[in-house]
C-alpha cells in the first residue's frame, strides 16, 4: 500500500507542479482563443485556418469547439462576468444586438476598405448591427425554404407554385403521402427548443398574422392567429408526418429527407447544399427548391440567421482578432473554399458577390431561392401587427431563450397528443406572462395594486 501511494503521489506531483507553474513563454506569438460551433462550414474554417497562421506567423489560433447550446452558455458566462477567456466568439443574429447593447462586444467600425463591407447582404448586416454600428461579421447566413421531391410531385401531377401557400402545401402533402412505401407527405421540426420547433412555428405564426408580444410586452399567445397556426402544425404532422415527429430536429429531418422518406420539408436553407450532394443524399437529383410557404402575411414566413464572428470587449488581442475575423469572412476566404472543395461548399448567405459568381450559380441550383429568401427576410417587421422586438424566428430579448423553450415543450406535447392544442396554448400564455412579470417587462397585478394604494 505504501509503495502504491508513494508511486501515485510522485506521478501526480510532477504534472501538478507543472500546472501550478503556468505557461512557459517559449515564443512571442499572440494566442487567439476562438470559440465556435461544430458544423460543416466551421470545420472547413478550422482546416483552412492553417493558411492564416502561415500568413500571420505572429498569431497562433486555439480552437474551442462546442455544441451550440453549450457554447452559448459558456460564452455568455464568460462575457457577462468578464472572464476574458476568448478573443473571438461565434454568435448568432439573436445574441449580437443584445450583447452589443450591453457593451460586451467591440464595434467593428474601422474595417479595411478591401474587406468591402457593402458587399455583405443587407438584412444580414442589419441583423448584426446595433445603433448603426456593426458588431459581428457574418460567416454564413441562412433563411428557411421549402424542399420537395420533384419525382413524387410529377407522379402526383402537381406543379410547384412560384410562391406556395400553406393551404396548397397541405393539399400536396395529402397527395404525396404514402406511408406504405415509407414516404411521408410533410416533415417539420418537432423537437422542443427555442431554436428547434419554435423557430419554424414562429414563422408560421408570423405569416398567420400573429406575434409574440404587443407593444406593451404583453404575450399574445392566446390569440386566434396562434391557435390557427398551431392547429395547422399539429394536424399536418399528425396526418402526413413521420412517426415520432415530436423528437425530430434539423438533423433527424435531414436524415429522413436525404433517405427519401419525406415528400416535403420546410427548414434552413443550409440544407440545400447537403441535400444536393450525392455523397450524403440519396435524393440529390430529385430535390426541388421553393420559397417558404406563406399564409395571410408574406413577411416573417422565412427566418434569418447568421453565424457570425465577434470580438468580446475583454479580448486581450483585439487587433489580431479583427485580423482573423476579417480574413475568415472575406471574399478571398470564399474563393479559397471554392478552390479547395468546389463552389457548392462555400459558406452561403453572406456576400452578394458569391451569388453573382457564375461558377456558384452553375453548381448551386438553389442559389437564387436562397438569396431571395435571405433578402426578403424582414427582421424589423416580422408580423403585420407592430412589435416591440426585432427578429423573425426569435425575439431579441435575453428572456426569450427560456420562454421559447418552455413554449416549445408545450407544442411538442400537443404534437404528441399528450395535451390539446387549446390547453398547450393556454399553458404557454401563462408561462410567457409569468416570465414577463418576473423580469419586469409587464407590471405585476399585485404590485400594481399596492402602488395604487400607496398613491391613494
Amino acid at each position, binding site marked *: 500500500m505504501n509503495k502504491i501511494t508513494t508511486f501515485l503521489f510522485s506521478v501526480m506531483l510532477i504534472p*501538478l507542479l507543472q500546472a501550478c507553474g503556468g505557461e512557459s513563454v517559449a515564443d512571442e506569438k499572440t494566442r487567439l482563443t476562438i470559440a465556435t460551433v461544430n458544423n460543416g462550414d466551421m470545420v472547413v474554417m478550422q482546416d483552412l485556418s492553417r493558411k492564416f497562421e502561415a500568413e500571420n506567423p505572429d498569431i497562433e489560433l486555439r480552437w*474551442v469547439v462546442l455544441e451550440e447550446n453549450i457554447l452559448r452558455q459558456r460564452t455568455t458566462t464568460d462575457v457577462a462576468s468578464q472572464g476574458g477567456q476568448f478573443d473571438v466568439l461565434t454568435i448568432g443574429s439573436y445574441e449580437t444586438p443584445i450583447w452589443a447593447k450591453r457593451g460586451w462586444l467591440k464595434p467593428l467600425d474601422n474595417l479595411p476598405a478591401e474587406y468591402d463591407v457593402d458587399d455583405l447582404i443587407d438584412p444580414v448586416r442589419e441583423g448584426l448591427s446595433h445603433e448603426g454600428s456593426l458588431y459581428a461579421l457574418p460567416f454564413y447566413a441562412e433563411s428557411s425554404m421549402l424542399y420537395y421531391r420533384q419525382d413524387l410531385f410529377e407522379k402526383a401531377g402537381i406543379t410547384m407554385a412560384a410562391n406556395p401557400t400553406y393551404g396548397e402545401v397541405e393539399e400536396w402533402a395529402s397527395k404525396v403521402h404514402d406511408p406504405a412505401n415509407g414516404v411521408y407527405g410533410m416533415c417539420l421540426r418537432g423537437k422542443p427548443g427555442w431554436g*428547434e420547433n419554435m423557430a419554424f412555428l414562429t414563422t408560421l405564426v408570423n405569416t398567420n398574422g400573429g406575434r409574440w408580444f404587443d407593444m406593451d410586452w404583453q404575450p399574445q399567445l392566446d390569440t386566434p392567429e396562434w391557435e390557427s397556426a398551431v392547429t395547422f402544425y399539429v394536424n399536418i404532422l399528425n396526418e402526413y408526418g413521420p412517426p415520432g415527429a415530436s423528437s425530430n430536429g434539423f438533423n433527424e429531418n435531414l436524415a429522413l429527407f436525404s433517405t427519401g422518406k419525406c415528400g416535403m420539408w420546410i427548414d434552413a436553407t443550409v440544407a440545400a447544399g447537403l441535400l444536393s450532394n450525392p455523397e450524403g443524399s440519396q435524393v440529390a437529383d430529385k430535390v426541388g427548391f421553393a420559397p417558404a410557404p406563406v399564409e395571410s402575411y408574406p413577411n416573417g414566413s422565412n427566418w434569418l440567421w447568421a453565424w457570425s464572428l465577434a470580438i468580446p470587449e475583454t479580448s486581450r488581442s483585439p487587433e489580431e482578432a479583427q485580423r482573423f475575423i476579417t480574413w475568415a469572412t472575406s471574399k478571398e476566404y470564399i474563393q479559397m473554399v471554392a478552390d479547395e472543395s468546389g463552389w457548392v461548399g462555400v459558406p452561403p448567405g453572406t456576400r452578394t458577390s458569391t451569388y453573382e459568381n457564375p461558377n456558384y450559380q452553375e453548381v448551386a441550383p438553389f442559389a437564387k431561392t436562397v438569396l431571395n429568401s435571405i433578402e426578403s427576410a424582414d427582421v424589423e417587421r416580422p408580423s403585420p401587427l407592430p412589435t416591440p422586438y426585432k427578429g423573425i424566428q426569435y425575439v431579441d430579448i435575453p428572456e426569450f431563450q427560456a420562454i421559447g423553450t418552455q413554449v416549445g415543450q408545450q407544442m411538442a406535447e400537443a404534437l404528441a397528443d399528450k395535451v390539446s392544442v387549446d390547453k398547450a396554448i393556454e399553458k404557454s400564455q401563462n408561462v410567457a406572462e409569468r416570465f414577463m412579470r418576473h423580469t419586469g417587462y409587464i407590471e405585476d397585478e399585485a404590485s400594481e395594486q399596492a402602488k395604487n394604494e400607496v398613491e391613494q
Partner: protein
Amino acid sequence: MKTNNKKSNQWLIGLLGWLVACILFFPIFWMFITSFKTEAMAVATPPQLFFKPTLENYVAVQERAAYFNFAWNSVIISVGATILALLLAVPAAYAMSFFPSKRTKSTLLWMLSTKMLPSVGVLVPIYILGRETGLLDTRIGLIIIYTLINLPIVVWMIYSFFKEVPKEILEADRMDGASTYQEVAYVLLPLALPGIASTALLSIILSWNEAFWSLNLTTFDAAPLTAFIASFSSPQGLFWAKLSAASTMAIAPILIFGWISQKQLVRGLTFGAVK
C-alpha cells in the same frame, strides 16, 4: 422436486441478470459499433447491424482534436481531485466515526445537503472567483472544484467504512502506545482498505464523467475529455459516427479501468453489508 425448483429459480435469476446487463450495456455497444460506420450508415433506417467497418471516424476525430491532451487532462484532474479529497476526508471521517460529538450527525447531513444545490446556481460566483484567482482554465482550478464536489460523498463513504471497524481494535493499539498517526496509518487504513479503494474508484469515475464544471471552467489548456466529446455534437449536419467515435475514445480508459478494478469495487461497496 424442491431442488428442481431451486435450480430453475437460479436459472431464472441468472437469465434476468443477463437481460438487465444486456439492456444496460446496449447503448454502449451501439455507440461502439456506430463509431465504425460511415455517417450515412449511422443514420440509415432500418439500423444496420452488419456492415463493412471503417476507421475513418477515428482518423477524422484524431485529426480535428488532440485526443491525448484531453485524455491527459482527464487523468490528472480526476486522480488529483481524488487524492486531495481522500487526504481531507480520511481525517474528517476518522474524527466523526471514533470521536463523535453532539453535532456529528447533523454535520454529516449538512454536508450531503450541499449536493442538492443545482450547480448552475453557483456558476457565476465561482466563475468570478476563478477569474480573480487566475484559476480559470487550469487543472488546479478544476481539481479544487472536483474535490469540493466529491468531498461529501467521499466523507460519507469512508465514515461508513470506518464505522465497520471494531472500536476495540483501535483501543487495543492505543493501549500498546500507538500515536494517532500510527493508529490510522498502520491499523485503521489497512482494515478499511477495500472501502477506501472503492471510494477512490468512485471518486475517479465521478470526476471523469463530470461535464458541467469542466465545460464551463475550461477553454483550451485544461479541457478534459467531456469537452472533447462536446466538440463533436452538432444540431446542424450529420456527425453521429464521429460523435460515437469520440465518445468511445473518451469512455474507453475509464471503462477498462472499471473492468480491471471491478472485483475491488464490488468488494468495497458490499463491505460490511453482511454481518
